[in-house]
């Protein structure tokens, strides 16, 4: 696994404002395989991101509630169950409902190529499929997601 040790390290002096990217990594739905999500969480940590990891079997409501309380900049969802066409839009709708439409939603998992354009059209910012290099995801997060101003 590629680690980016020290890459985005911010050691701010006391009293100096320092925004850090905060990302929620969650696993909605019923599948119990969280290895991928954990690897992503770790890689993002190594890139200087604060990752809120919520664990398995989350409903979209739970994820969005946690995202609201934690004031995150982005939500990364790992879905291997095949329910992505339901779960992603549901999360996006709930975010909109809570006026959190600016939170970037991305994800990965076992998602057929045909479904990806539909999900993107629906508002998912980026979908990663198996085989993606970890660094690609880290670069995406660092490049695309800005900490809230």
């Amino acid at each position, binding site marked *: 696994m590629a680690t*980016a*040790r*020290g*890459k*985005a*390290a*911010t*050691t*701010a*002096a*006391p*009293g*100096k*404002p*320092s*925004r*850090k990217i*905060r990302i929620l990594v969650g696993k909605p739905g019923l599948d119990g395989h969280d290895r991928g999500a954990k690897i992503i*969480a*770790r890689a*993002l*940590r*190594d*890139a*200087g*991101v*604060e*990752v*809120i*990891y*919520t*664990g398995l*079997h*989350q*409903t979209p*409501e*739970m994820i969005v*509630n*946690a995202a*609201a*309380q*934690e*004031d995150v900049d982005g939500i990364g969802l790992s879905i291997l169950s095949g329910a992505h066409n339901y779960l992603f839009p549901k999360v996006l709708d709930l975010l909109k409902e*809570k*006026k*959190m439409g600016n939170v970037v939603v991305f994800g990965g998992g076992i998602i057929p190529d045909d479904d990806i354009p539909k999900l993107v059209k629906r508002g998912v910012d980026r979908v990663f499929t198996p085989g993606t290099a970890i660094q690609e995801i880290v670069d995406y997060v660092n490049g695309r997601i800005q*900490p*809230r101003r």
Partner: protein
Amino acid sequence: MSVPVKDILSGNVRAAARLMRDLDDEIPAAIRTIKSLYRHTGRAYILGVTGAPGAGKSTLVNRITSLLRSRGKTVGIAAIDPTSPYSGGAILGDRIRMQQHALDEGVFIKSLATRGHLGGLSRSTIDIVNVMDAMGKDVIIIETVGVGQDEVEIVKVAHTNLVVVVPGLGDDIQAIKAGILEIADIFVVNKADREGAEKTQREIETMVSMGEYGEGEWKPSVLSTVAATDTGTGELLEEVERHRAYVFQESRIASYRREKARVELLEILKARLIEKAVKDLTRHGLLEPILEDMARKRKDPYSIAEKVADHSFAFRLLHGKKPPAAGGKGDGR
């Protein structure tokens, strides 16, 4: 953009979350907001939960929260996990064990990273607790980062401190060491279904009995739980309630509040004075030459710090500004 005070007081989740993040990130506008919030704090009961990594703190907090909710209390949770010293990033995973409260509007969970702060808390923890307090949460639980022996900052913040230990982590010498074992109001021997639990409990009880306690003084109690199966947690909450009643006695609570005021002031003062000193030195072009001189061993940091501390900047702060009237009389020194 600053967060309106009234939104916090009315318990607005989004507003509170934004403010908490801004405080954690040390955004100046957030400091302005918390100034006006301060007089609305002091109503919540604050429970500290500390202990070694893997002792079961999160699971215990989860159970305690359920019990408090069943009694109609609203709960705020500040859960702290470590920041990576290499990348500055963090994985905040305390929520994993608290999923059952994810949809409960009476529970607000904030995950915090230490961001290099030592002592078991994040630098922002007191501020975050103040926001939850102003939101009207009845009980605020602070779960420290997994600690070793000396991370005892929680003792200055919480009304009641739980120290969670697990069987088999060390012999009885560990139990008489100073530090974390001294700060407990209640010891929780968690994972008590494991081998050695009774021995651990006995050792702690022996240690406690070696202390001297005056008339009416709280003597730390030792309870066993298996948080994973919710065993012993009801009894634990009863004991917590007993300690709360002890702390909130007329004669005690005033001194607690003053002590907390002192901690708050000193923490903020420390940060501000350092900030101001560094800024002053930098502005006058002194900092870099001083560092250069130190590197060449022509100056020593002790003398420089003395000079900086004697400088009048510390006193300028106090001129023309009245200390904030927080409603209390006789505020420390």
